[in-house]
């Protein structure tokens, strides 16, 4: 077997194996990329909330335009259709569909549900007070609706239950449907059966809502034609974000492929060479994904997204290879330098491996394995595949031009250039220092691909609906439902005092729908026996305008409640309270969790909850298993932790690179000459971004790593030539320039994407690698030009 056959067989076998792994791999597109690999219980809860919590399944729909009554008709038709669809666990438009069942439920269980039920409530004085109140209520219009209830419920438990909690915070009504306060939008809410992180299912469900809308609109005829549907909610955002990233990535990669291949074709003049030139990148990408799949068990979508980073370096390998092998100096001169450059990048990316942020750790492994594979293919496979003579364009004239340019710069003298570099470094450092406080963006929202206008619209709809901003949630965990309901009742008492102090506007609690068995038992025990009740009632009614015999149904109802069963979750089925209850109770294996979302105080003009006072109050109450989860702060803290960790790891990577170069080059001076241009490029770009008002995110940091990874090749080439006592050949200068041009094109296009993640990478890498090349050309040599020639 020839060497050629062996190499190719080995390579093809590797590709085949990688392809098998890649095709079998599990791909995750959910938020688990952001879940720390060793989460605290709080972080686990946080991510579960974001991923699967009731808030993540919420679809908010608003109908705008046309007449309000037409909108209400369309909404009602949509609701009917969507309620029949099992993809939605709940669809509400304010239509009192289950009003009858709700009323029956409340009426039947009122003495177990009302927190007014105590022994005192049924003493003569307590009854008198409550009945007087009920009589007064009859004078008001809502009282007229309750008139028929008085004989059964003279103490007004129904009104009390409705006023305390269940009926609270309901949206405005117009024409029998929910409406915004200004009446311009008619609203409905759906909860999907699928989790919010299942973007495919969300996309399908959104399409179903749209179809239901179109059908209802068509059925309503021409008056409804002016009505438009707008949707919001986490699922809608996720679907839109995925679509826009997909679209932008597709568009940009097509444009950049066309540009880069066009550029390479001009140089290579052969499609065969062009295709061969893409082999290192393709092999690297495949091996990278396969390694991540093997190493982590599953590949995050975000890792694939970062994968473009690989193009930055591995395309260069082929460029160096073709241009230099045309001049016959590849294996001898170039490979050791490419290898060192590759190892430098590997060191940089290796430091990402221990990151708690799985997205970053996967990126590290992906880049390391991909780069090694690409370099190996360039070194061993390409030489076997290229024809002995291939018609590459002679780039010598371009190289000579570049050399003249470089010489012009370098003729200013080493000292002058070093001084200029120092001055630039100093200026950039000053800028960074001045912006230090605001340099890093610690808000995860900075990475959100959701446009601000959409986020604001979402907030508006939530305000219309009185839906709790899922920002602050009091979380009660326990081993069973009863435990968490009791915890929720205790936490509710603390929260109620905050409501009374107007710190918060209100809160939802599962215990409002279903009190704990302990509470229900206590209330049931508080109900008097028939004889005592009749006696107390007789005395209470003295001086009141109500006859005891009018209230016979009341006596019978209390008697029934005394011997009746406690309310169970099954009793909630079929009422509109079931959805509310289900949304607030989570159950996973042996863990039960009750959620108490907290509402913003509406009159304080405050848009946000005083999280500190909330946390302090809940903390002071010393409630077991109870915590305040500030979703936004917690998410930002998580992200901020990642950012800090990434910065630390990058610095460690820098140190590792220094060690590697010291070992390889065996000269501190050379290490300084190699690293200075890269460092200068990184801080110059950071300073420019800071000056441009851009706050740096974790993606900018990844971009900086790429500047070092890609730029180290440039600097090492110049250094190698310098160490060998040569001036760089025109071919080498041309190949570096070509490699950089393709990198700048690919990443420059990313910066036009308007998607924060891609923007950040593009804006950092494109100018950074260009500066790295210029600085390397200017700084990585000892003497003035022509010294070696």
């Amino acid at each position, binding site marked *: 077997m020839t060497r050629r056959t062996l190499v190719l067989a080995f390579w093809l076998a590797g590709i085949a194996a990688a392809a098998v792994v890649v095709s079998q791999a599990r791909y995750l597109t959910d938020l688990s990329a952001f879940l720390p690999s060793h989460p605290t219980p709080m972080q686990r809860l946080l991510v579960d909330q974001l991923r699967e919590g009731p808030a993540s399944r919420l679809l908010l729909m608003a109908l705008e335009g046309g007449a309000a009554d037409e909108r209400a008709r369309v909404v009602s038709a949509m609701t009917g259709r969507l309620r029949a669809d099992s993809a939605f666990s709940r669809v509400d438009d304010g239509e009192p569909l289950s009003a009858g069942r709700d009323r029956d439920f409340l009426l039947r269980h009122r003495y177990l549900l009302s927190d007014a039920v105590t022994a005192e409530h049924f003493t003569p004085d307590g009854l008198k007070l409550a009945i007087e109140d009920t*009589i*007064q209520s009859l*004078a008001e219009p809502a009282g*007229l609706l309750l008139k028929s209830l008085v*004989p059964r419920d003279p103490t007004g438990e129904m009104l009390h239950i409705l006023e305390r909690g269940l009926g609270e915070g309901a949206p*405005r009504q*117009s024409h029998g449907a929910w409406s915004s306060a200004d009446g311009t939008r008619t609203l409905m809410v759906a909860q999907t059966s699928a989790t919010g992180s299942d973007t495919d299912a969300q996309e399908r469900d959104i399409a179903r809502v749209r179809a239901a809308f179109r059908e209802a609109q068509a059925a309503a005829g021409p008056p409804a034609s002016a009505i438009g549907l707008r949707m919001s909610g986490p699922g809608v955002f996720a679907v839109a974000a995925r679509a826009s990233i997909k679209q932008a990535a597709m568009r940009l990669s097509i444009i950049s492929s066309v540009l880069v291949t066009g550029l390479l074709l001009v140089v290579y003049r052969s499609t065969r060479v062009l295709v061969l030139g893409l082999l290192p990148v393709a092999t690297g990408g495949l091996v990278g994904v396969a390694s991540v799949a093997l190493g982590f068990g599953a590949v995050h979508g975000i890792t694939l997204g970062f994968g473009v980073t690989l193009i930055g370096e591995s395309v260069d390998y082929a460029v160096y290879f073709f241009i230099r092998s045309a001049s016959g100096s590849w294996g001898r001169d170039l490979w050791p330098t490419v290898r060192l450059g590759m190892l430098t990048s590997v060191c940089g990316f290796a430091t990402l491996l221990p990151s708690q942020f799985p997205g970053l750790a996967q990126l590290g492994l992906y880049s390391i394995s991909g780069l090694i594979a690409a370099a190996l293919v360039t070194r061993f496979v390409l030489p076997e595949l290229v024809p002995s003579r291939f018609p590459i364009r002679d780039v010598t004239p371009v190289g000579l031009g570049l050399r003249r340019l470089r010489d012009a710069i370098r003729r200013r003298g080493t000292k002058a250039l070093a001084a200029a570099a120092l001055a630039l470094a100093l200026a950039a450092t000053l800028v960074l220092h001045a912006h230090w406080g605001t340099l890093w963006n610690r808000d995860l929202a900075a990475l959100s691909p959701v446009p601000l206008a959409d986020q604001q619209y979402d907030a508006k709809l939530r305000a219309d609906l009185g839906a709790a901003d899922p920002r602050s949630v009091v979380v009660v965990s326990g081993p069973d439902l009863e435990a968490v309901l009791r915890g929720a009742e205790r936490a509710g008492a603390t929260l109620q005092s905050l409501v009374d102090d107007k710190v918060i506007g209100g809160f939802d609690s599962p215990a409002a729908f279903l009190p704990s068995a302990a509470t229900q038992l206590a209330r049931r025990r508080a109900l008097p026996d028939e004889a005592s009740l009749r006696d107390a009632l007789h005395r209470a009614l003295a001086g009141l305008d109500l006859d005891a015999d009018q209230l016979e149904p009341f006596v019978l109802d209390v008697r029934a409640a005394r011997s009746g069963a406690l309310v169970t979750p099954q009793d909630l089925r079929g009422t509109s309270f079931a959805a509310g209850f289900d949304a607030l109770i989570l159950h996973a294996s042996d863990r039960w969790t009750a959620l108490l979302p907290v509402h913003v105080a509406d009159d304080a003009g405050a848009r946000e909850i005083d999280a500190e006072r909330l946390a302090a109050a809940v903390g002071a109450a010393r409630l077991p298993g109870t915590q305040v989860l500030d979703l936004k702060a917690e998410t930002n803290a998580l992200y901020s932790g990642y950012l800090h960790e990434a910065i630390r790891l990058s610095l460690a990577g820098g140190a590792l690179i220094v060690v590697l170069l010291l070992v390889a080059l065996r000269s501190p001076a050379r290490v300084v000459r190699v690293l200075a241009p890269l460092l200068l490029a990184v801080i110059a770009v950071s300073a420019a971004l800071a000056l441009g008002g851009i706050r740096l995110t974790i993606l900018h940091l990844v971009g900086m790593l790429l500047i070092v990874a890609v730029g180290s090749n440039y600097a090492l080439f110049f250094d190698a030539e310098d160490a060998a006592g040569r001036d760089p050949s025109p071919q080498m200068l041309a190949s570096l320039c070509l490699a950089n041009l393709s990198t700048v094109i690919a990443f420059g296009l990313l910066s036009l994407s308007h998607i924060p993640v891609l923007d950040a990478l593009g804006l950092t890498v494109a100018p950074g690698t260009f500066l790295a090349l210029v600085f390397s050309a200017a700084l990585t040599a000892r003497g003035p030009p022509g010294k070696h020639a």
Partner: protein
Amino acid sequence: MKPAVIAVCALLLGSAAAGAAEDALDGVMRSLAARRHGEADFIEQQFLALLKRPLESSGTLIYDAPDRLQKITREPRAETLLLEGDVLTVRRGHRSRVLDLKTYPQLLPFIGSLRATLAGDRAQLESMFRLEFSGSVAHWTLRLTPLDAELQQAVSRIQIDGTGNDLSRVEIRQPDGDRSLMTLRPHAAP
């Protein structure tokens, strides 16, 4: 005179008599509609079968054209009721409740009848009630009977008495025999 002519004359006379009441109703409506703002103290008594004695409350009624009606109850306990457009806001203490009349149509005759009368909006009254007018522009009585079967379950008849563009008495009868009687004493026009 030929019988046909007599018949025509009789028809004309008859319609003239009907026309007089129509004219007076239009006159009352016009004079009510001309008023942009009005205030009156009220005393309301509710006669409920459930209760041995009528429930009494009192306060002030404030109307602002075209569709804002405010009922401020002071006795026996403070409560404000505001009808604006289709939205009814009930405020007691620091708690308020917002009701959409489209969702609770049974509330409409109670307060909507009063507002439409104050607005002099005959078309709106006729969309909900059969109207019977008697008296003159100076002293009039308007009887309203709900057209809608659903409304008839809430209200069987409303009678409004007035002098000129002031309302003096509003009586609402419910099908179960309960009734409320509101007596109004207008504030002097500013």
